């Protein structure tokens, strides 16, 4: 029976080709537009670490005077000062925690073997690799001892390793970062998530750093951060030492808290820490204020999904609703014109359910056709997005979820639009249409 | 009132030429009541369409009330239809979206008559056909006979001098058919010229003058009778 209905639908399409083309294009354009903005939304709002995003927390401290404002919704700066980062890193609380910031060096071998190039480099603590599940394909991260001794060691990504050493093993090799000679002790698998979730302060979708060095090198190498440095009060900062002691915010801090007890303990620790710091006279606040958002909340808080995209998604769904109203109107006309024919079918023994099923199959076919065409249009749209804004090249793509959602949304939308006309057709008393005409 | 001379109508399809009317001649005087009969496909409807200026003709001359119809523009024909001709169709052709009042009002609106006068005339016509109490009803809420009476009211609303009826009783049972016929006779007595196409020999016999069309030509003139008074049952009581 199902195939019979498909056959009937096909005949119906052929009988009114113009209206069919109109309806399929309407749904295709609706789906195309919606899927274009929704795909970007989907990629922007993706959870980068679904298995532990509720355990990883971004630590924010308000070490500013009461009344200082910042652009975040709760006036908390996204980064903390160097001194706080050191204190929190050393704190004796049950948590896996690490400071981290971005810097950069020219990478070279002090000879002509490769052309020197600039590379972004992350300065962080050993726990970073545990918190963010960094997988090593060769060697391992530096040890706690190496970090404590501020040894000149580095780990690099597989991609960078291939670029520097080809197929040879990178572990044990030496490489210059500017004038500093580093030893490679590990190679990690490339980060392959489009959101740079462990550092949202310098572009949410920037490329991931391909080299890491220990946080303890910050002082001996006088490492300057590449990224935002935010002050809130006037301080005369001239030397690197001044900067380390200053109230400028430039270090990110992450803590992994595995259970509610740890979370609770960490909250208490931060409260006490801020009270203690205030007593030292660094700032004046009525009550300690800090943030420990988990990763998902933090991505949202940082506006990883752009406002423009939210506006577009909302508008595309309204657009889709216009397409639906359009189709509904056309279906209404088309189905009602068919009432006499349905009357004959009913008289010949078709049940209401048969008639209903026939029409639902017909609208589903429309949805399927429109959905498939819509995917093609969305690909075109996403190509347009990538061309306009190369920064979105990783985002403006359809993954499998989106690819399957498109026809499903299209079919559901069409069925939704077709239900009322189909119901009207079924409701019609067959006797009436047989009598007239 | 109506003169047709050598009127022909040819329908041209890809391969076939169909002569629906050929060298058709007819004179109709003011106040006549003519029944047109003939077998299916003989050209009755084509004749009626041409008479009512619903269709153009291929050759010949057609004078309506002294006006040469062949030379008129589309708009002029529309106006002429509106002012001089009333139509009664076999399928009633009431407009389903409009209620009785609005249906009867349609030709008056095209004539650009003021709202108050329209109302008066519509009510008068509906009273004549005995449906004044149902002005708010939609056509589908009426029986076939009632619908045809509304259609007659609509045809009368413009006070036409010339009434064209196409199988006015074709969709009605015999009782209703008789009532409609009586109504038409009444209208004829009131002064309108009527041409009625019909299949029904009994109805045709009631008309004073009969024309038979066969193969696009007038086949046979029956005896011309002066219009005579026929006893009428209460028209409104139907």
């Amino acid at each position, binding site marked *: 029976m199902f195939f019979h209905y498909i056959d009937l639908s096909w005949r119906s399409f052929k009988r009114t080709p113009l209206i069919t083309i109109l309806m399929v294009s309407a749904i295709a354009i609706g789906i195309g537009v919606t899927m274009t903005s929704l795909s970007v939304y989907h990629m922007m709002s993706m959870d980068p670490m679904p298995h532990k995003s509720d355990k990883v927390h971004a630590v924010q401290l308000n070490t500013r005077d009461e009344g200082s404002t910042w652009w975040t919704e709760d006036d908390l700066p996204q980064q903390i000062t160097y001194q706080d980062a050191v204190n929190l890193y050393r704190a004796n609380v049950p948590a896996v925690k690490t400071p981290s910031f971005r810097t950069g060096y020219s990478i070279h071998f002090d000879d002509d073997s490769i052309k020197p190039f600039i590379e972004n480099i992350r300065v962080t603590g050993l726990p970073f690799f545990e918190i963010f599940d960094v997988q090593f394909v060769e060697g391992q991260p530096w040890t706690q001892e190496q970090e404590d001794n501020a040894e000149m060691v580095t780990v690099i990504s597989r991609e960078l390793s291939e670029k520097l050493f080809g197929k040879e093993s990178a572990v044990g090799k030496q490489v210059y970062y500017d004038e500093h000679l580093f030893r490679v002790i590990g190679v990690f698998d490339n980060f392959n998530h489009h959101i740079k979730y462990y550092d949202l302060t310098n572009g949410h979708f920037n490329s991931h750093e391909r080299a890491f060095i220990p946080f303890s090198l910050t002082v001996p190498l006088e490492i300057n951060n590449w990224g935002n440095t935010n002050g809130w009060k006037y301080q005369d900062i001239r030397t690197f030492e001044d900067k380390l002691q200053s109230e400028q915010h430039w270090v990110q801090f992450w803590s992994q808290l595995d259970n509610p007890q740890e979370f609770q303990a960490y909250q208490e620790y931060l409260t006490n820490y801020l009270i203690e710091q205030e007593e030292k006279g660094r700032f004046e606040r009525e009550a300690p204020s800090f943030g420990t958002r988990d990763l998902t909340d933090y991505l949202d808080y940082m506006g990883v999904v752009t406002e423009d995209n939210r506006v577009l998604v909302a508008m595309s769904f309204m657009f889709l609703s216009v397409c639906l109203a359009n189709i509904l109107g056309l279906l209404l006309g088309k189905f009602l014109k068919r009432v006499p024919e349905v009357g004959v079918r009913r008289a010949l023994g078709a049940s209401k359910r048969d008639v209903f099923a026939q029409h639902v199959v017909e609208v589903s076919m429309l949805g399927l056709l429109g959905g498939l065409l819509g995917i093609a249009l969305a690909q075109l749209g996403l190509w347009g997005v990538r061309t306009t804004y190369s920064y979105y090249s990783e985002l403006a793509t359809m993954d499998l979820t989106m690819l399957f959602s498109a026809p499903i949304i299209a079919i559901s939308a069409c069925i939704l639009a077709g239900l009322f006309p189909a119901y009207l057709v079924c409701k019609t008393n067959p006797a009436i249409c047989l009598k007239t005409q | 009132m109506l003169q047709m001379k050598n009127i022909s109508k040819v329908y041209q399809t890809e391969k076939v030429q169909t002569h629906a009317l050929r060298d058709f001649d007819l004179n109709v005087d003011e106040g006549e009541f003519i029944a047109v009969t003939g077998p299916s496909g003989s050209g009755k409807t084509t004749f009626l369409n041409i008479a009512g200026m619903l269709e153009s003709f291929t050759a010949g001359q057609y004078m309506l009330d002294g006006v040469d119809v062949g030379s008129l523009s589309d708009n002029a024909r529309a106006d002429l239809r509106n002012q001089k001709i009333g139509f009664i169709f076999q399928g009633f052709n009431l*407009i389903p979206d409009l209620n009785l009042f609005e249906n009867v009002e349609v030709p008056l609106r095209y004539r650009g008559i003021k709202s108050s006068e329209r109302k008066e005339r519509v009510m008068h016509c509906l009273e004549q056909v005995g449906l004044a109490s149902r002005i708010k009803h939609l056509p589908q809420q009426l029986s076939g006979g009632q619908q045809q009476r509304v259609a007659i009211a609509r045809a009368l609303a413009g006070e036409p001098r010339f009434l064209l009826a196409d199988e006015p009783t074709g969709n009605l049972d015999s009782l209703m058919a008789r009532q409609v016929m009586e109504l038409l006779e009444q209208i004829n007595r009131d002064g309108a010229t009527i041409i009625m196409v019909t299949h029904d020999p009994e109805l045709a016999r009631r008309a004073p003058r009969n024309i038979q069309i066969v193969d696009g030509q007038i086949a046979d003139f029956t005896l011309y009778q002066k219009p005579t008074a026929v006893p009428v049952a209460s028209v409104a009581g139907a």
Partner: protein
Amino acid sequence: MLEIKPIFNSLFRSKAGAILLVLQIAITLAIVSNSLSIIKDRMDYLQTDSGYSEQDLFQISTSVFAKDTDLLYLLEETERTLLGMNGVVNASFMREVPLSGSGSSSNFGNKPLDQNESEDYRSVNTAYTTTPASIFDTLDMTLIEGRFYTDSEVLKFNGDGGDLPTQVVVSKHYLDEIYPDGDGLGQFIYIGNSPIEIIGVVERAMGPWPKSNRPLNFAFFPIVDATGSQKFVVRTEPDMREQVMNEVEEVLLAQFNQRVIMNIQGLDDAKREYQASDILMLRMLVILIVLLVSITALGIFGMTVFNINKRTKQIGTRRALGARKSHIIRYFLVENSILCISGMVLGAIGAIYLGQMLFEHYSVPAFSAMYVVYTAIFVLIISLLSVLFPANRAANISPSIATRSV
């Protein structure tokens, strides 16, 4: 003669189709008018004049990795090398490059910090850069008051920071904000308690962030502090930029090769890259509007065709009863206008509501009712045009349809 009342009645009796069309028009109006408002806002932003002839300027960054280099000497030598290139008009070190999206900004007071309790204390944010005296020629700036600083007034350091500046050249926009009374020239702005004299005012200079809320606040300090990473802005003769940009890396490495040359980019391209997300939004909205209006027009077209097919007989009847062709066309135009206007009333309410929602939750401009008016006129025209064609077809229906019996 407009048959408004019967049309109304007839619409009311076939409500579903009419309601759908009204809704479509309403939503279309709401979306299009709001999109137009956003588009207008973005266009204004994208078209803001930076004050530079961007197409003749490009930036370049260098990063020195050699030990024990005299960075200040290298910096000045690099400037001289650039200047020696064929087609280069001028080249200057500039720590923060305009339009590039990366720079520095700070608040400066109109009084020393220790007087910040005073009533007329003002502190205004501006983007700033430290750069040699040649920059004013490189960027081809127009001086409107005072003077530019000279080479001998520039403080030079070799990566060791040091003294605060004592002079500054600011953009007119900044001057007007920190000294609104127009007497800013010769007055001071303060870093903490240290005074800096405003010696010159340029007409227009955009800072590194075109999108900031003060894009045209910019200040130039006479300091050159050479560190390992150095940026330069180069102005070329018209049509020579492409060639200079292609050759510049080789020329600079030939001069000194212990460094990485990167970010060779025209300022217009830098600006376009910075603004890419807004250009994207603009394009998306334009496409959205075009598609939406087409879909709605097609919808109106389709519905009219349907209505006409459904009413073939009644149109024939009307013609038989004396309707002129123009009456039939007018009938459909009036019917459509009634729907369109109801849709617009609903849509205007929707548009203003949507505008408010967007304004509350997102950083879009406040919605002006004028956009509803423009859009409504536009939608009305489009909708009448979409009706015209099928209505014309309807008018050509032969009145003889009326005598046909099925």
